[in-house]
């Protein structure tokens, strides 16, 4: 269903995974490893649920996948590129162009309108801007319509509910058709009804954008709606810090 680009195809014609970690080691301080992952694969085009208790290293792992943190050892292949071999600005470039990131909360720049928040990655990154099919304005409105925030585009984040803010954040992560969307517990600040609604809208827009979704949470109740579920403690051999 996704019209994969050539670069996404492995030499044997199979689709390259969105994320592939091999023998990955990471610690904030030497001697206290946070992540020791021998193998972890997020297949392209799927919605993947990664769960683990608080402090198990979920955010840290997303930081490595997004290229904000750099692994100490091993390989971190993201969208076909080994981040451990890329320099800082190449990782920034890859993230800005081909990734979407949603935080747990406080996703938005407070002094920018919802519209300006959504379009910020495209305005910061010309290559992401080029990935738009139509104009910045029309694409933004289309996405906002899908996420049911079209009427809120002129509002400031402070004027929005938490659920609305998360949908604005989702729109921002998705504008410019990123190949991978990474969401760090984006629903944990929402109540159960909102959580379901948000997830539905997020799935729909990811499907429309053709994006792989890597969604982390400590809350396993959402697991069933994803194509695939992974447990971080199962793949992470590093001792969990108290």
């Amino acid at each position: 269903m996704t019209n994969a680009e050539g670069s996404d195809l492995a030499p044997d014609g199979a689709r390259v995974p969105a994320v592939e970690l091999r023998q990955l080691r990471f610690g904030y301080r030497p001697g206290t490893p946070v992540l020791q992952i021998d193998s972890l694969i997020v297949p392209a085009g799927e919605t993947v649920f990664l769960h683990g208790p608080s402090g198990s290293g979920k955010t840290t792992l997303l930081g490595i996948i997004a290229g904000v943190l750099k692994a100490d050892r091993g390989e971190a292949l993201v969208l076909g590129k080994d981040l451990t071999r890329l320099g800082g600005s190449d990782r920034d470039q890859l993230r800005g162009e081909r990734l979407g990131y949603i935080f747990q909360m406080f996703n938005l720049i407070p002094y920018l309108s919802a519209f300006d928040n959504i379009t910020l990655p495209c305005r910061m990154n010309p290559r992401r801007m080029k990935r738009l099919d139509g104009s910045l304005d029309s694409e933004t409105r289309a996405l906002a319509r899908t996420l049911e925030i079209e009427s809120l585009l002129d509002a400031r984040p402070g004027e929005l509910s938490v659920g609305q803010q998360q949908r604005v954040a989702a729109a921002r992560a998705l504008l410019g058709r990123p190949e991978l969307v990474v969401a760090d517990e984006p629903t944990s600040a929402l109540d159960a009804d909102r959580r379901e609604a948000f997830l539905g809208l997020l799935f729909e827009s990811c499907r429309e954008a053709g994006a792989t979704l890597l969604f982390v949470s400590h809350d396993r109740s959402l697991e069933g709606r994803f194509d695939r579920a992974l447990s971080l403690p199962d793949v992470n051999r590093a001792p969990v810090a108290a």
Partner: protein
Amino acid sequence: MLTLDLARRSLRNRLLPSILTVLSIAFSVALLVGIENIRNGLRASFTGTISGTDLIVGPQAGSIQLLLYSVFGMGSPTGNISAEAYEHFQNHPAVAWTIPYALGDSHRGYRVIGTTQDFYEHFRYRGGTPLALAQGDRAREARDVVLGSEVAERLEYDLGERIVVTHGMGAPGIMDHDDMPFQVVGILERTGTPVDRALYMTLEGIDAMHEGWEDGVPPAPPSFAPGGEGSAEDDYYAAPPTPPSETDAHDHDHDHQHAEAQTPVGAQDPSDHAHDHGGTQITSFFLGTTSRFEMLSLQREINEYRGEPLMAIAPGIALAEMWRSVGYAEDGLKIVSFFVVIVGLLGMLVSLYTALDARRREMAIFRALGAGPRRIIGLLVVESGFLALMGAVIGVALVYGSILLFQGTVEARFGLLIPIRPLGSLEWLYLGAVVAAGFFLGLIPAAKAYRNTLTDGLSPRS
């Protein structure tokens, strides 16, 4: 440009803290620049007490003393200059003009100075400003007196007022020249110099007033007709506290003793009055040379004058020397400036740093959206640099604005002219430090934001 647009919006979003930060920087800049201007104004007004005069000539004594009594109206003349000596140098080919001064009398505590039209003609202060009359005319007749502006103001005298001059610097009383009242014919424009604190009359007036006062005491009745016969008794004298023995080479010791016996309690000791019979005597004179190149040789010539012991000082140099010797006042201001700089910079660092630190969450968001180090640094540096620059500009504008606004008031109130002047090197240094600190300060949180993770500002630990 996106970075500038974002910085602008971010600043507008935090308008009040931004304004406060700018104001705190502006005030510290204004304080330093203000102190520097006052320091400069103090020196300028001190060294500008007299200008255009190449040499001040008086009887041989301390040069500071000569400067004090002839320029600042403080202390007493050290003796007299004979008419011959004065005329000799007045007609010297290297001398363009002279202003004679005869000191020794007072009016209600203000000095009375005998001089000539040359005073109004040639006296200059503060960068060559000539004297001007606010009202009336110069003193031309023996009974005319012209008031310095402060004298007129404090004593509330108008033109036509009749005043009595006191012999010496004492209080009005028995030593008054009450046989010869003077009439106010003019009031000088304010100069902000000691000129404002004296009264000016003609040498003839001084002569006539002292008719019969050769002993330094009032003439015995019946008193001589004032105005005199222009007799050979012309009498110039030097004034107060110098003991007679040191005063001059005149031989009137017995007279002085006599005078002392008569001195009423509370009155100025008239024996302080040195006087002489014989030609027009003055206590000092100012001179301008025909050419600056003549100054040194003329000075040497005066110092080596054989007729009587004289000395000549160059007021510019003497004033600068004197300023340096009382320079601890200036040093005090410099120390204050130094602490203003330290406190100002620290305050600026604190307010900028807290402003920037509060935005770590924002920076984490920018990072997640793919912003590279250049963008992050750009955002923070543009903001803090802009705040520092605004602070510096507003601070400087504040100072020059208030100088423009209050220059007149300060001059009128304190006699201190604070000139509009370009910024000095210390001020440029400080402004540079403020702006540079502003820019560099943005780098710290930028570097932090770049190194930190996406959890930044979200998780309780930092």
